[in-house]
């Protein structure tokens, strides 16, 4: 469904994404993990069109979309959420979601009806008439999800939608994400909450300093010495192994 080929993104001298390639199979939930500043969000901006790659290509359903504007990619069926939530603060929750719904529904009443359904689904039912700026962190994350979902995407890019939520909120939202996939939406998610990655993702890519350093099922990737070192520093994998032997 989605294929990123040797994408590189430079900001001046900084190489935020370096020759990264990944594939997302239709119908899967694929994870993208990596330490802070690895370039995960930047890779999302390349896929969603907010930045253009310095090198490399982005293919969606076999077509090269590297030069398409963000709204064109949204029309093709790619929706993203923002790590730093971007609500339409002056609007109600329902109106926020309706902006997304308008992508596929020209009529106001249709868009509102669709927005209400989506809002109910992600658990914002009681909040629909409130101002978006009155939502809690968890509510805002749900709103990001709802708006993206309202565009009726084929591919959903989730950038840390679980960050800042408490364990019980995380437990509530994991089944929602799984249900979205079960209805046929392919998901690529950036996530630091490993419990969620383990339980949701079939395939995981690990990004460190702009490069993809590992890929595979989540359990395998977590045991990969390269990955452990990326998170914990050089020599960490060795140390951990020694500690295990001693224990």
């Amino acid at each position, binding site marked *: 469904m989605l294929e990123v080929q040797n994408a590189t993104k430079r900001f001046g001298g900084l190489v935020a994404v370096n020759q990264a390639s990944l594939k997302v199979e239709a119908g899967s939930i694929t994870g993208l993990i990596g330490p802070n500043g690895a370039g995960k969000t930047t890779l999302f901006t390349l896929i*969603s069109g*907010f930045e253009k790659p310095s090198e490399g290509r982005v293919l969606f359903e076999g077509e090269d979309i590297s030069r398409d*504007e*963000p*709204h064109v990619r*949204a*029309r093709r069926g790619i*929706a*993203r959420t*923002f790590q730093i939530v*971007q*609500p*339409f*603060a*002056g*609007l109600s929750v329902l*109106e926020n979601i*309706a*902006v*997304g719904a*308008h*992508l596929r*529904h*020209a*009529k*106001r009443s249709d*868009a509102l009806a669709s927005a209400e359904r989506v809002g109910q689904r992600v658990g914002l039912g009681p909040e629909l008439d409130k101002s978006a700026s009155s939502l809690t962190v968890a509510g805002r994350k749900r709103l990001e999800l709802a*708006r*993206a979902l*309202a*565009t009726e995407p084929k591919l959903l890019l989730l950038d840390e939608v679980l960050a800042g939520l408490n364990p019980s909120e995380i437990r509530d939202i994991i089944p929602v994400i799984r249900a979205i996939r079960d209805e046929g939406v392919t998901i690529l998610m950036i996530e630091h909450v490993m419990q969620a990655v383990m339980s949701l993702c079939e395939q995981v890519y690990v990004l460190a300093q702009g490069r993809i350093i590992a890929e595979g099922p989540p359990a395998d990737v977590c045991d990969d010495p390269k990955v452990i070192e990326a998170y914990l520093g050089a020599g960490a994998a060795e140390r951990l192994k020694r500690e295990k032997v001693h224990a």
Partner: protein
Amino acid sequence: MTFRDIAPIVVLIALIAFVPAFITANTVLNFLVFTLIIALAAQGWNILGGFGGQFSFGHAAFFGTGAYAAALLQVRLGINPWVAFAIGTVVGAAVGWVIGYLSFRSGLRGSYFALVTLAFAEVLRILANAATFTGGAAGVLIKLDVRPGNFQFESRGAFFWIALALVGAVLLLTRWIERSRFGAQLVAVRENEAAAKALGVDTLRVKLGAITVSGAVTAAAGGLYAQYFLYVDANIAYGTWISVEVILAPIVGGLGTVFGPLVGAVALHGLGEITKLAAGSVPGIDLMVFGGLLVAAVAFAPAGILGLMRRSARSRGAARHA
């Protein structure tokens, strides 16, 4: 749009239409027509600035274009004034599109956009003041020839009704925008452009649409002005005064609301007129009232008079429930 969307507008306009039946003093009618023209121009600004969040400081560019087009097309080219008025409105739309294309495509927003629109208006003012075709500094005088077919009327009431009809038409247009996909996308652009893009909104197209409609409406106000006063010069048509007027009225009345510009224009000019009557002809007293009202609006009623009324209605409702 539903019946409930349209009914208040129709009722309000119908009520105001009776005003000339009771008030026949020319000075009062003059004041009312002038206020309606300002309201119309401000309605144009409100579509782009209030709904779209793109604050133009140069709506004189559209007002002046509408005024000069209406005047010059009939005086220089002998075109029927009604047709000239319509063409002026279309030219205003075109000027809006061009200014929008040049500034939005290069990503100008916020104060940069405001400054660029101001610059456009100033350039047009200087050109109109210098060119011979526009009559230079002397301006253009439209020949007095009172015939309805000539867009000139015996009674001021007729002009009042035309201005009112246009204000009513734009109230309906604005209501439609508010209830449409275009309006939802326009407000989304105002609230958060990146988020709007991510949701598939073609932000450039939406902003261009808004500035085009906005330019047309404000140009229509300019055309009406020329036709009413039968005189245009560069400092009237392209002057900063009108750019400021069209911003003040929506801010005082309620930014991004259907009735805001009309309420604001009536409040500003009504109060200005009353103080002029009360304080005598102290020069600039109405401007001081404008300034005072603006400061009061920004400080105490950021959602304008309409926002204030809604808030007090809500708290009264809450008090009743308690």
